[in-house]
C-alpha cells in the first residue's frame, strides 16, 4: 500500500530575536489511506507543529519548514511536495483534500457569522457550488454528525450552541469537502468526558464510512489507546518511538514511552484496594524508592469538615431594570463530611456545581443557605474579621497556577505573604519558614527569588501549593489542581499532595473531572450533577459499584488506556445535561438518599 502522507526528516524552525529555535527536527512517519495515526506527547513535544506543517499553517505562527520533505498524494494520484507548493496550491488543498479540527470548540467558530455561512464558504470555494447547493450539502453534513434540528442550526450563531454541538459543527466543516486526510489536533481535550466519547465515536464512524485517514494529535494516552492504529510518540521536538498501538502499549521499547505510560492512571486499576496509592513514576529513582517505602496513610475518624444542606444560587438578570428573573441553582442541598487526613473527591462534568461548591465552603462566594462547619466552627456565622482569621485553616489551590500567581512578585514573597497576613512570623523566622516550605514541595531553594514565568507548569503548581501550605491549613480545596499539567508532572504533583497529606494530616476537597485520577487519590467520592450530589460514599464502593444512572454513564464514557478495551466504535449519544436555571420561586425538592452500602448513598428520585 502506498502511503497517503509521508513526513521525512522534517525540521521546523521558529524565528526569534535570539536566532532560530528548532520546533521539531528529524521527524519521519507515514500515514496510509484509511489509517489512524496518533501523535502523542506532552506540551512542547512538537506534535502540533508537526500537524500544522502538513497544512503549511505553521508559517502563520512564525515557523518555517527548514528541512526535510512532506508529501501528500492528491486525489488525481499526483504527489504534492507540501513544503515547496505555492500558496495558491496550498489554499486549494486546505479544507478540500485535508481537513482539520482544533482543540477549542468554543473559539473555533467565528462568533459573528452564522453556522450556515461558515459551513458553506468552503464548499462554494472548493466545489464551486451555488449558494443553494452548498446549503443543501451543509444540511446533509449536519445530519451526518448527528446534530438535532439541523435546519434551525444553520440560522444560528456559534454562541447559541453548546460546546459538544460546536465541535460537531467544526467536524462537519472539516468533512464537508470529503477530505482524504483529517487532522484532529486535541479535538476532545476541552470537552467533558461524555461529549468526548461521542466525538471520538463520531470520528471513528466517519473514518470507517468514508475510508479517510486520520492524523490524531493528543496528550492523552487513554484516547490514543482508544483511537490509534499506529502511534508516534514525540518528546522535545523529536520522535521517541513509533509502532502499532498494541506494540506501544504492551511492549514499549523506549524509557520515555514506558515512563509516559506508567504515569497514566487507568480507571479500574484500583479495584480491590482500600486506600489511595501514589502514582508510579519511572526514571526517578528517588521517587520510586519513596513510593515503595511510604507506609499506608494513617487515617483518624475525626471529622474536620461538615457541610449541611449547602445551597448556592446565582441570580440571572434580565429586563430593562436588570431585575433577577431566574436563578441558577449552582449548588442544591449538598451535605457531606470530610475526616481529618482524608480526601473527598467531587467529580462531575462542567457546570455541575463542583467548583461553586468548593468556593461556597470557603465563602469565596456566599452560599444562599446551609451550614459549613470546619473544626467545630460554623463558617457561615463568622463576621468578616473572624472569617479572615478562619481562612488560615482553609486554603485553595486553583487549576491554572500561572493565573493564580502574581506575575510581578518573586515566589518567596508570594509564599511569605499569607504568613505575614496572619502575623505568624517575621524576619529570619519568616525566611526560614519560607525556605522550609520550598523544601517541602521539593522546589530548589534557588527558585525562591524567581518569578512565576521562569518556572514550568508543574513547578508553578508546586509554588501555588507552597503558598497554600504556608499558614499550616487543615483543609485544602484543590479545584482541578492537576488538570492543566502533563501526565508525568501531574503524577509528581499528585504524589506530593499525598505525601503532604500523610505527613501533615491535611484534608483535601479534591475537585476534578478526571475519574482515573480520582480513583487513585480519593478516600471518598461524591458525584455531582445539576448542583446535587447524586451519589457519595467510599471510593471503592462508588467507583466499582456505581448505582446512580448518571455515575454509570460518566464511568462508561471514560476512555481506558488499553487498546484491547475499545469502547467508542459506534455512535454514542448520552443524555444531555439539562439546565440548572429555574424560575424565581421554584421550590427545589430536598435531597434525600438511600444507603446502598456502608456509607454509600444514592440520591432518590
Amino acid at each position, binding site marked *: 500500500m502506498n502511503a497517503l502522507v509521508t513526513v521525512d526528516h522534517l525540521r521546523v524552525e521558529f524565528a526569534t530575536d535570539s536566532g532560530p529555535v528548532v520546533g521539531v527536527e528529524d521527524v519521519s512517519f507515514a500515514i496510509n489511506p484509511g489509517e489512524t495515526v496518533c501523535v502523542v506527547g506532552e506540551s512542547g513535544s512538537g506534535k502540533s507543529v508537526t500537524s500544522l506543517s502538513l*497544512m503549511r*499553517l505553521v508559517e*502563520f505562527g512564525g515557523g518555517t519548514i527548514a528541512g526535510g520533505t512532506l508529501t501528500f498524494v492528491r486525489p488525481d494520484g499526483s504527489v504534492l511536495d507540501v513544503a515547496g507548493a505555492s500558496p495558491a496550491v*496550498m*489554499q*486549494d*488543498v*486546505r*479544507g*478540500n483534500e485535508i*481537513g*482539520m479540527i*482544533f*482543540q*477549542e470548540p468554543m*473559539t*473555533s*467558530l*467565528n*462568533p*459573528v*457569522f452564522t453556522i450556515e455561512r461558515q459551513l458553506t*464558504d*468552503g464548499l462554494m*470555494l*472548493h466545489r464551486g457550488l451555488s449558494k443553494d447547493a452548498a446549503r443543501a450539502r451543509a444540511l446533509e453534513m449536519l445530519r451526518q454528525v448527528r446534530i438535532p434540528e439541523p435546519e434551525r442550526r444553520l440560522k444560528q*450563531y456559534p*454562541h447559541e450552541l453548546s460546546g459538544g454541538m460546536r465541535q460537531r459543527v*467544526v467536524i462537519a*466543516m*472539516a468533512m464537508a469537502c470529503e477530505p482524504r486526510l483529517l487532522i484532529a489536533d486535541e479535538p476532545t481535550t476541552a470537552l467533558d468526558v461524555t461529549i468526548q466519547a461521542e466525538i471520538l465515536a463520531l470520528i471513528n464512524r466517519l473514518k470507517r464510512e468514508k475510508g479517510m485517514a486520520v492524523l490524531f494529535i493528543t496528550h492523552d494516552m487513554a484516547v490514543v489507546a482508544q483511537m490509534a492504529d499506529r502511534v508516534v510518540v514525540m518528546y522535545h521536538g523529536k520522535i521517541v518511538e513509533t509502532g502499532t498501538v498494541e506494540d506501544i502499549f504492551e511492549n514499549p521499547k523506549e524509557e520515555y514511552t514506558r515512563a509516559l505510560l506508567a504515569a497514566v492512571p487507568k480507571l479500574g486499576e484500583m479495584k480491590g484496594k482500600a486506600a489511595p496509592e501514589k502514582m508510579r513514576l519511572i526514571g526517578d529513582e528517588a521517587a520510586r524508592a519513596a513510593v515503595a517505602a511510604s507506609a499506608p496513610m494513617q487515617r483518624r475518624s475525626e471529622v474536620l469538615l461538615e457541610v449541611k444542606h449547602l445551597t448556592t444560587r446565582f441570580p440571572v438578570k*434580565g*429586563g*430593562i431594570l436588570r431585575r433577577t428573573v431566574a436563578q441558577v441553582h449552582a449548588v442544591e442541598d449538598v451535605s457531606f463530611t470530610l475526616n481529618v487526613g482524608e480526601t473527598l473527591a467531587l467529580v462531575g462534568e462542567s457546570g455541575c456545581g463542583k467548583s461553586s461548591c468548593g468556593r461556597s465552603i470557603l465563602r469565596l462566594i456566599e452560599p444562599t443557605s446551609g451550614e459549613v462547619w470546619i473544626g467545630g466552627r460554623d463558617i457561615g456565622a463568622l463576621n468578616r474579621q473572624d472569617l479572615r482569621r478562619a481562612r488560615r485553616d482553609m486554603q485553595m489551590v486553583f487549576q491554572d497556577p500561572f493565573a493564580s500567581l502574581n506575575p510581578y512578585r518573586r515566589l518567596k514573597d508570594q509564599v511569605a505573604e499569607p504568613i505575614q497576613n496572619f502575623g505568624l512570623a517575621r524576619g529570619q523566622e519568616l525566611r526560614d519558614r519560607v525556605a522550609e516550605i520550598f523544601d517541602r514541595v521539593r522546589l530548589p531553594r534557588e527558585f525562591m527569588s524567581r518569578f512565576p514565568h521562569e518556572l514550568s507548569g508543574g513547578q508553578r503548581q508546586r509554588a501555588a501549593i507552597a503558598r497554600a501550605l504556608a499558614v499550616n491549613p487543615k483543609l485544602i480545596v484543590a479545584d482541578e489542581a492537576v488538570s492543566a499539567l502533563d501526565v508525568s508532572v501531574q503524577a509528581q504533583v499528585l504524589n506530593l499532595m499525598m505525601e503532604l497529606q500523610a505527613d501533615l494530616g491535611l484534608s483535601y476537597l479534591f475537585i476534578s473531572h478526571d475519574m482515573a485520577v480520582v480513583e487513585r487519590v480519593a478516600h471518598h467520592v461524591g458525584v455531582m450533577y445539576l448542583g446535587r450530589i447524586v451519589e457519595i460514599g467510599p471510593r471503592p464502593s462508588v467507583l466499582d459499584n456505581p448505582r446512580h444512572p448518571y455515575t454509570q454513564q460518566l464511568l462508561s464514557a471514560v476512555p481506558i488506556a488499553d487498546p484491547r478495551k475499545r469502547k467508542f466504535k459506534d455512535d454514542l449519544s448520552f443524555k444531555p445535561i439539562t439546565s440548572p436555571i429555574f424560575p424565581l420561586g421554584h421550590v427545589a425538592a430536598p435531597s434525600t438518599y438511600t444507603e446502598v452500602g456502608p456509607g454509600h448513598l444514592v440520591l432518590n428520585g
Partner: protein
Amino acid sequence: MTYVLNRLLSVILTLFLITLVTFAITNILPGDVAMMIMGTQSNPEALAGLRETLGLNDPMLVQYGRWVGGMLTGEWGDSLIFKKPIAELLSQKIVASSIIVVMSMAIALGAAVPLGVWAAVHRDKWQDSVSSTTALLGVSLPDFFWGIVMILVFAKWLGWFPSSGFVDPSENFLLAVQHAFLPSLALGLGLMAHLTRMTRSTMTGILGQEFIRVARAKGLSEGTVVWSYGLRNAIGPVITIAGLQIGYLFGSIIVMESLFNYTGMGWLTYQALLNRDMPLIQATVFVIAAVVMLTNLLVDLLYLAIDPRIRLG
C-alpha cells in the same frame, strides 16, 4: 429588543440630566440676561422691568420648566447677539458642522482601519513601526498646528483648496465640500492615532484566535481571512471609540472653525461664549450633547448589527 429599549431610556435620562446641568450652570454664572441685553450702565428700574417681562424673577423650577418646554416645542427664543431666532441659527450651523464632523471621521477611519490592519498583519515588522509612527505623528501635534500646515501647503502653495470660508451645501455642494476639506483633514489626523492603535490591538487579538486558523485551514484566501473573518470581529471596539470621539470633535471644531473662518457650530459656540449670549449657549450645549448622544446610540445599534452575541442581553 430589551437592549435597544435600555439604551433609549438611558439616552433620555442623560438628556434630562444635561438640561439640568446646562440650565444650572448658566444661572449660577454672574450677570443675567436682562443685564446683558441692556448693558451694565442701564437704569435699575428699566432693568427690573425687563427682568419681570423675561420672567427672571420666577422661581427656578418655573424658569427651568419654561425653558425645557420651549426646547421641546421648538420655541428656542432669540439670540441676543445675532438678534435672530436660535432655532433657525442652529439648524444652519449644525448642517455646516456636520459636514466637517462626518468628513473628518471618514478620513480618520478610512486611514486608520487599513493602517491598523496592516500593522496587525505584519506585527513587529517594519510595517508595524511605520503605522504606529504615522499615527503618533498625527496625535502628538495639536490639530490647530495641522490646520496651519494645511493652509500653508494645500491653500497657499498648491492652491488646491480654499483657505477659509463656508459655502452652503444647498447652493453648491462641491464647493461646500472643498471648503470643509482642509479643516476636516486637520481634525482627522488627530483622530486617526487612537483609531489606528485600537484597530491594531483588536485585530492582533482576533488574528491570534483559533477561528482564524480554522478559516485558513478551510483554504480561504488571506484576503477573506483578514478582511472578512478578522475585521468583522475587530471593528466593534473601533467604532465605539469613533463614536466617543464625536464628542471630542465638537470641542475641537471650536478652534478649527475659527481658524478656517468656517461659520458652523464651533464658530457659533465661540461667539456665544465670547458675548455671554446665555440663551444661545444653553441651546448650543444642549444640541451638541443631543447630537453626541444620538451618534453614540447609533454606534451601539451598529454594534448590535455587527455582533450577534449582544442581541441576547
